[in-house]
C-alpha cells in the first residue's frame, strides 16, 4: 500500500512523541549551525565588542583624539562627569527627548493602530503615509523641518505672514527648540509604534472579544480587559525601541538646532561628538559614552523586567 504524504502527516501530528528519524537527511547539524554563526560573531566583535572595550579603555586616559600618545588619568574623567554642569544639562535633555518621544509615540501609535485596524477605505494608504517617515533618514527629516521652521523663507513663517501675523524665530528658545525636536522625532517614528501595535492587535484572536461581548462587555472594558493585557508584548517592544532610540538621539538635533542655543539642546550623543572632535577631549568623551551605555542598559533591563512581570500577571 502506498502511503500518501497527507496520511503520514496526519499520523505524525497525532503522535506527539514523533521525532524525525536519524537518517542522513534529517540529522541535526548543530556543529555546522554553530560554524555559520562565526561571520556574524566576527562582525559583532569587530564593530561592537572591540569599540566598546576600546572606548572603556580610552575613558581612563587624557587622549586628545588624534595625537599618537596619551596618559592614564584613572577615574578623573568620571569625576569630571559628576561635576560638569553642561553634562547635567545635556543628560536632562536626553531624558526629555527619550521619555517625551516614547510617551507621545505610544499614545499616538496605539491610537493610530486602533483607528487603522478597523475596515475602512484608504486604510492601506494611510498606514503607508504614517509609516513613510520611518524610512527617511533623520538628517533629511531634520533638514525638512529646518526649512519649514527657519525665520526667513521658512514655510511656517510664510503662512503666518500670509495670515497677517509676524515672523517668529521658532528655534530661538531652549524650551521651544527641545519641544520641536521631541515633536519631529515623534512624527518620524510614530509609524514604527503604529506597525508594532497593529501587529499586536491582529494577533489577538477575535473569539475573546466575541465571548466578552456575549457576557455583556463593550467599548472601554473590552479595550482595558482584553486589548491592553494582550498587547503587553507589543508594549514592551515599542517602548524599549523608542526609549533606546530617544536616548541615542543625534541626527535631528545636529541638523535642526546644532545643539544650540549655547549647549542647551544637545543630547549626550551630540555632546560626545563635540567633546571628542571640537574640544579635543576624547578620553572625557569616551567616559560620557560609557556612562550613556550604562544608563541605557540599566533602563532597558529594568523596563524589560517590569513589562515582563506585567505580561505574566496579565
Amino acid at each position, binding site marked *: 500500500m502506498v502511503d500518501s504524504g497527507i496520511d503520514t502527516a496526519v499520523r505524525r501530528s497525532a503522535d506527539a512523541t514523533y521525532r524525525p528519524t536519524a537518517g542522513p537527511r534529517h540529522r541535526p547539524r548543530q*556543529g555546522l549551525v554553530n560554524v555559520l554563526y562565526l561571520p556574524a560573531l566576527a562582525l559583532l566583535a569587530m564593530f561592537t565588542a572591540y569599540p566598546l572595550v576600546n572606548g572603556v579603555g580610552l575613558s581612563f586616559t587624557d587622549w586628545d583624539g588624534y595625537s599618537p600618545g596619551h596618559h592614564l588619568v584613572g577615574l578623573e574623567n568620571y569625576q569630571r562627569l559628576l561635576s560638569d554642569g553642561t553634562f547635567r544639562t545635556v543628560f536632562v535633555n536626553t531624558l526629555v527627548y527619550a521619555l517625551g518621544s516614547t510617551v507621545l509615540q505610544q499614545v499616538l501609535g496605539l491610537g493610530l493602530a486602533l483607528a487603522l485596524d478597523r475596515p475602512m477605505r484608504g486604510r492601506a494608504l494611510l498606514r503607508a503615509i504614517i509609516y513613510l517617515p520611518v524610512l527617511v533618514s533623520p538628517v533629511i527629516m531634520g533638514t525638512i523641518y529646518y526649512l519649514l521652521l527657519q525665520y526667513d523663507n521658512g514655510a511656517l513663517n510664510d503662512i503666518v505672514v500670509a495670515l497677517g501675523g509676524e515672523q517668529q*524665530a521658532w528655534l530661538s528658545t531652549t524650551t521651544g527648540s527641545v519641544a520641536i525636536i521631541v515633536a519631529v522625532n515623534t512624527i518620524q517614528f510614530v509609524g514604527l509604534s503604529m506597525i508594532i501595535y497593529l501587529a499586536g492587535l491582529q494577533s489577538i484572536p477575535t473569539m475573546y472579544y466575541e465571548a466578552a461581548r456575549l457576557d455583556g462587555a463593550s467599548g472601554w472594558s473590552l479595550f482595558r480587559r482584553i486589548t491592553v493585557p494582550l498587547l503587553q508584548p507589543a508594549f514592551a517592544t515599542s517602548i524599549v525601541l523608542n526609549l533606546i532610540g530617544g536616548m541615542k538621539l543625534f541626527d535631528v538635533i545636529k541638523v535642526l538646532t546644532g545643539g544650540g542655543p549655547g549647549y542647551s539642546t544637545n543630547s549626550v550623543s551630540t555632546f560626545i561628538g563635540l567633546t571628542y572632535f571640537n574640544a*579635543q577631549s576624547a578620553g572625557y568623551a569616551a567616559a560620557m559614552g560609557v556612562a550613556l551605555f550604562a544608563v541605557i542598559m540599566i533602563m532597558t533591563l529594568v523596563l524589560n523586567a517590569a513589562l515582563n512581570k506585567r505580561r505574566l500577571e496579565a
Partner: protein
Amino acid sequence: MRRRLVLTAAISALTLALTGCTGGGTDSGGGKGGQVEFLTGTAVDSPLYGQYQDLVKKFEADHSGVKVNLVPSSTDHEGDLKVRLASGNIPDIWMTHGWSLLRYGKFLMPLQNEPWAKDLAPALKPAMLGQGGELYAMPVDTDIAGLLYNADVLAEAGVKPDDIKTWDDFNRAAAAIKAKGKTPIYAAGKDQWPTGLFVDWIAPGVFSEAELKSMKEGTFAEGSYTKVLDTVGAFREAGLFNKDYSSATTDNVARALAEGKTGFSFLMNFVATSAFEYKKDARIGFMPVPTANGGEPYLISGEKNALGINKDTKHPKEAKELLAFLAQPENLTKLAKASGSAPGLTSAQSDLGGLQSSYDTYVKSGAVPTVPYFDRVYMPNGAWDTMVKTTDGVVTKQSTVADSVAKVKTDFTKLYAQAK
C-alpha cells in the same frame, strides 16, 4: 567533511576580520597606487576647489606618472582630518585650517627651506613660524579681516566707518542703523562657529600685553574675558542682533549684507565673496575693529588655506613639487582670488574684487596694525568650541556672562594642563 566545513567557515571569518582591520589601514602614505592624496579642506562647489582642479590637471600634464587625488571637504574638515590622523591613515597633503604650527606641526614636514618660503607674507609670520623659524605649510592666502559692513546701510544711517574707533562709537553707529529699521549686526547662530569670532574680534582690544603674556603661560585673565563677553551681552541688550540669530547661517549673513539688510558682520571676508554672488555691485567693505582700551583699531590676520605635507608621506618629492607648482606667482594669484583673500606669499598679486579698496586703504598702506586670531595664540588647543558655545550662551541669554566665563576658565585650565 564536517572538519572541512568548520575550517572553511573559520578561515572566512578570519579573512573578513582581517579585511576590516586593514581597511582603515596604518598606511601613512595616504594616496593609493602612487597617487598623492590632497585633502583640500574646501567644498566641491567652491571657486577655490575649481581652481585646484584646473591647476592639478596642469601639474599632472607636466609630471607624467604623478597622479593627484583631490579630496573636497565634507562639512567637517577638521573632524575628518583628526580621524585620519588618529587611525594612522594620513593623507599626503592637507589644508591645515589655521593650525599648521600648533596642532599639526608634529605631523608635518618642515618646509622653511623650500624656495617659495622666503616670500611668506609678513602678516602670517607670527602665526605660522615656530620659534626656530620652522614653517610647516605653504599659505595659499592670508586671512585678513575686520568688521564687514554694507556702505549703503551705513551711509543711510549717517555713519562713517573711519569715525568708529571704540566700542562706544560702534554702539552709537549701531543704534543709528537700528533706528533706520535695519539689523545692526547679522550673526549666524545656526552655524555656531561664527559666534566664537566675537571673542577673536573683541579680545585683542581688551586684553593688556601683560595679560596676553600670562594667557600664553597658562594663567587665565578672567577680568578681561568678562569684559569681552560683557561687550557681546551689551549688543544683545541693545537688540543689535538679527531676530533669526538661532536659525541663521553664514549664507544668510552674506545675503543680508548683499541686500542691504544689515550694517555689520563679525565674519571673515569669504562672506563678502558670497555676498557679491548675490549682488555683484553690492557696496561691501571691511574696516578695522574698534578697541575698548583706547588703543589703535586693528585688523585680524592669520593662516587660512595653507597646505602641509605629511612628514611620513611615501611621495615627498611629488608632494613638494606640487606645492612648489601651486606657489608659483601666477598660480597662487589665481588661488587667492578664488578664495577671496590676499595671497599668502608676497610674490603673488592680490585681487580681492569688491574688497580691494578696503585692502588698499587699510592693509597695503600698512596704516592699520594687524593682530593674530586670539584663540589660536592665547587659548589652548581645543578651547575654540568652548569659546563658541559660551559666547552663544550670552547672545541667546541661555547663560550669564559670569557662568560663561567660569566655563571658559575651567576648560582653559584643563586644556592647558593637557597640552603640557
